[in-house]
C-alpha cells in the first residue's frame, strides 16, 4: 500500500510538466462558483484553460481521459491572503522577505522579485490543493506595505500570475503606530500621501519641488496613483467596527479606489454598511478571541453573518501561519459548514464555503474571469481529492495547474520515508534515499 503510493508519486515526478489537454470524467464536480456539486461531471482542459465543465459534457476525441472514479474534483484552492513564496523559515531572516521595515520605500515596493517558486512551502501547499495565492507584503518602513501579486504554485521557475495585483495597508492599531501614534495621524497621513500622489500624477515636477519635504518618493507615488485610479485594488487590514466605517468613507475623497477589507473581525457589527458599500472582505474565519481591543466582538459567526448580509466573503488563513499552512483554508471552510448547524451560530452552506476559498478571493482581487473556478475560460487548475475537500485530512490525489500535471511529492514526504523505520540499518540514515 505504502509502496504503491510512492511509486505513483515517483511516476508523477518523472512525467514532464507541459500543458496537456485532459478530460477528467466521472467526477463529483465542484465548479467553485457557489453552485452545487455535479455527480458524474466532466471537466475538459485544453491549452491550459478550462473549455467545458459540467454534466453531459462531451469529451473531444483523442484527448487524455482521467477517470476520477466518482471522487471530488474541484478548482484549485485560491489562498485569499498569504505570504506564500516570501519565506522559507520565518525565524531565519535571510529566507524571510515578508517585510522591509528598514526600507526607505513603501507603496512602491513590489514583491515579485522576492517570490521563490523553488521554496519548500510551495510544494507543501500545492500538495494540500492550493494552486493560486494572493500574496501581500507584510510591511515596509512607511504606511503602505507595498504591492502584492497573484501567484501560481506550480512546479516551475515562474510563479507570478499577475504582478502588482494589490496594494496593502494596515489600519487600526498597527497602522496608527506606523503613522505616528494615533488613528488621527493615520488617517491624515493616508490622505496626504494620496493627495501628494494625485498632485504628482497631474504634475510630476511637484515631487522635485518638494525635495526632502516630500511625503512620498517617486516610486511610491507611481504605485499610489494606480491605487487612486482603481487600477490596483487597495487591501486594507482593519478589524474594529468604527475603523471599518471610517475606511469605507475614504472613498468620499478618492471615489475610484477599489477597496478590499482584510481581517474585519468586528465586521458583523457593521455588516449592512459593508454590504451597501459593495466592498469584498477577506476573513480568517475562526478568529473568536479578543486578541486586542480592536477585536472585542470576535466570533466565528462573523463570516456567516457578513455573507448573510450580502457581503462577498473570502476565507483566508492569516493571523496564524500565512506562508506554510495555506491548506488550512479547506479546514476553515469546513468549520463554517459545521457552524451552520449549531444553534444560534452562523456559517455557510458547503457550496458557499467552497466558493469562499476559490472564486470569491479571485473576484475580490478582480481576477474571477481568469482563476478561481472551473467555468469555461478559466485557468486549468484542477484537483482530484481523495475525499470531501472540506473534510479533515482530505488530500489531493492529482493536481493540474494551467493544465500541467503537478508533482505532489514534498520534502516532508522524503523525510517521512527515510524514517518509516527509525532505526539505522547497515548504513546510516544519510545513505537512505
Amino acid at each position, binding site marked *: *500500500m*505504502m509502496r504503491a*503510493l510512492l511509486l505513483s508519486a515517483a511516476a508523477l515526478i518523472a512525467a514532464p510538466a507541459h500543458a496537456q489537454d485532459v478530460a477528467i470524467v466521472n467526477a463529483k464536480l465542484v465548479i467553485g462558483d457557489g453552485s452545487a456539486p455535479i455527480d458524474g461531471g466532466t471537466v475538459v482542459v485544453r491549452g491550459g484553460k478550462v473549455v467545458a465543465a459540467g454534466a453531459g459534457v462531451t469529451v473531444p476525441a483523442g484527448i487524455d481521459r482521467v477517470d476520477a472514479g466518482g471522487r471530488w474534483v474541484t478548482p484549485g484552492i485560491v489562498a485569499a491572503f498569504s505570504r506564500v513564496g516570501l*519565506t522559507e*523559515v*520565518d*525565524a*531565519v531572516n535571510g529566507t524571510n522577505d515578508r517585510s522591509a521595515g528598514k526600507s526607505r520605500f513603501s507603496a512602491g515596493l513590489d514583491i515579485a522579485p522576492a517570490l521563490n517558486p523553488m521554496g*519548500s*512551502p510551495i510544494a*507543501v501547499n500545492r500538495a494540500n490543493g492550493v494552486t493560486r495565492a494572493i500574496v501581500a507584503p507584510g510591511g515596509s518602513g512607511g504606511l503602505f506595505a507595498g504591492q502584492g501579486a497573484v501567484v501560481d504554485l506550480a512546479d516551475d521557475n515562474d510563479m507570478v500570475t499577475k504582478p502588482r495585483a494589490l496594494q496593502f495597508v494596515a489600519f487600526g492599531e498597527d497602522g496608527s503606530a506606523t503613522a505616528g501614534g494615533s488613528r488621527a495621524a493615520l488617517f491624515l497621513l493616508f490622505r496626504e500621501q494620496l493627495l501628494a500622489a494625485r498632485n504628482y500624477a497631474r504634475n510630476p515636477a511637484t515631487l522635485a519641488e518638494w525635495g526632502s519635504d516630500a511625503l512620498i518618493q517617486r516610486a511610491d507615488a507611481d504605485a499610489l496613483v494606480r491605487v487612486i485610479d482603481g487600477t490596483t485594488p487597495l487591501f486594507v487590514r482593519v478589524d474594529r*467596527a468604527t475603523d471599518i466605517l471610517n475606511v469605507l468613507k475614504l472613498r468620499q475623497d478618492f471615489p475610484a479606489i477599489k477597496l478590499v477589507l482584510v481581517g474585519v473581525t*468586528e465586521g458583523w*457589527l457593521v455588516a449592512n454598511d459593508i454590504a451597501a458599500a459593495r466592498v469584498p472582505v477577506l476573513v480568517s474565519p*475562526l*478568529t*473568536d*478571541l*479578543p*486578541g*486586542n*481591543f480592536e*477585536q*472585542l*466582538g*470576535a*466570533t*466565528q*459567526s462573523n463570516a456567516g453573518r457578513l455573507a448573510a448580509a450580502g457581503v462577498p466573503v473570502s476565507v483566508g488563513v492569516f493571523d496564524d*501561519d500565512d*506562508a*506554510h*499552512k495555506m*491548506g488550512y483554508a479547506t*479546514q476553515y471552510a*469546513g*468549520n463554517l*459548514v*459545521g*457552524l451552520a*448547524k*449549531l*444553534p*444560534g*451560530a452562523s456559517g455557510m452552506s458547503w457550496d458557499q464555503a467552497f466558493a469562499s476559498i476559490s472564486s470569491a478571493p479571485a473576484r475580490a482581487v478582480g481576477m474571477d474571469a481568469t482563476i478561481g473556478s472551473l467555468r469555461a475560460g478559466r485557468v486549468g487548475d484542477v484537483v482530484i481529492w*481523495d475525499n470531501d475537500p*472540506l*473534510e*479533515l*485530512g*482530505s*488530500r489531493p490525489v492529482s493536481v493540474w495547474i494551467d493544465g500541467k500535471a503537478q508533482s505532489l511529492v514534498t520534502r*516532508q*514526504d522524503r*523525510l*517521512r520515508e527515510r*524514517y*518509516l523505520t*527509525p*532505526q539505522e540499518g547497515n548504513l546510516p540514515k544519510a545513505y537512505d534515499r
Partner: protein
Amino acid sequence: MIRGVKASLLAAVSLAFAGCTANGGEVETASSKPAAEKPVKFNKDPYPSTYKGYPTRLTVVRNVTIFDGEGGRIDNGSIVLSSGKVDRVGGPDMELPTDADVVDGTGKYLTPGIIDIHSHLGDYPSPSVEAHSDGNEATSPTTPEVWSEHSVWPQDPGFSRALANGGVTSLQILPGSANLMGGRSITLKNVPSRTVQGMKFPGAPYGLKMACGENPKRVYGSKGRMPSTRMGNFAVNRATWQKAAAYKKKMDDGKVVDRDLAMETLAGVLSGEILVHNHCYRADEMALVIDMSKEFGYKVSTFHHAVESYKIADMLAKEGICSAMWADWWGFKMEAYDSVPENIPLVYKAGACTIVHSDDANQIQRLNQEAAKALASGRRMGMQISDEQAWTWLSYNPAKALGIGDRTGSLKPGKMADVVLWNGNPFSAYTRPEKVWIDGAMMFDAMNPKLRPVSDFELGQPGEGDVK
C-alpha cells in the same frame, strides 16, 4: 474525596520536609526550635485548590457512539453519570436508572473531555496586551522558583472558548520557553472561577517546564550572557542540576536550614514528585536530554513540540517518554523545519506515548480536528488506526503524562465525569461539542445560551454572550 487527596498530600509533605507550615492558621517557625534538631519544614501546597465540582444531576446519555478514551468503542452505547463520577458505561442492554435526566445521543458521539497538556491560557491571555504578558520570567535562564499559577488570569476569555468550541475539560498551563528551566506548571480544571485556586485540579502533581534549543540561547545570547549556544544550554542545565542534587541530599539528610524555592522545585523533580515537561523540537537534542536526565537521576514525562520525534520514536518508546505534538505546524523556525504531517501516527506506530497538544489559544479549540488530520495522514500511509484508538492522543495519554490518568482521561467507572457529547463524529470538520460535563456538572450546552460562560472581561463589551 477532594479533602482526602489534600490530606494525604500534606501527610506526604510532612514526611519529607519539616518547618514553616502555614496550615489552618497555625504557623510554626524554625526559630522557635533548635535548627540542629529540626530541619526546615514547609508546606508543599501553600496555594491549595478550592475547586470542589459544581452541582450534578443523575444523567444518562443513551444511543450514542462512545470512545472510552483508552481505545475502546461502544456503538449504540449508554453512560450513567452520578455524583460527579462515571457510574457505568455499556451497550444498549445496560440497565439504566429511571430517575435520571436522559439525553438521546442518536447520531452523536460521546468522549472523555479533551486534555491539553500544553497551554498558556491565563499566563498569555487575551487580550494579548503587554500588561498581560506573564508567561516568561525572562530575567534568568533558570527560574525553577516561579510558579505559573501565580500568573494565571482566570478571566482569560480563552478558557471559555476551549470549553465551548474545543470540549477541553482539563489543561496544563506552562511557563513559556525563554528559559531552560521556566518554572512550575499547573494543571487546571477548565471551569470559570474568581481565583486560580478555584480551577486547580485537586491533587495533580506539579510540573517543571524546561526548554531546549533556539529560544533560551537566543533570549540570553542576545543579552550577552550564557547560554548563547546549545552547548551553553546544557552547561547551565547541568550546573543547575548538580546544585539541585546537592540540595536534595542535604534535604534528605535533614540538613536544609535555608529554604531555596528554586532548589525546592528541582529537588521535587529529582524525588519524582514533580514531572518534567520539556519543550524540545529536535531529535538529537531529545537524545541528549535523555542522557542528562539519567546523569542526574530524573525522568522526562513529555517532550513538547516534539516535531522530530518520528526520527527517534524507537528510543522514546524504550524510555517511556511521551511526545506532545502538533499535526502539521512547520517552517516557522529552524528547529521546526523537519516537521512531517505523519509525526503523530509514526510515534504511535512505534508504540511510544502519543499526545496532541496546542500551545495556542486558537488550536486548543479544535484539538480533535488536529488529531483527525494526523489520523488521516497515518491512514494515507496504510496504517490501521481506528478513531477510538486515536482518541487516546487527546485524553488518556495526556492525563497519564500529567499524573492524573487514574482520575480522568477515560470513561471508566469511578473516574471523574469529564465528558463531551459531540453533535457528530468529532473527527469531522462539521462537528462541534453539544454538551460538556466537568465532574458531572454540565458546564456548557450549545442548546442553552445560559450555559455559555462569559468572563468578566467580556461583560458589557460588543458580542457579550455571543456564540463565539
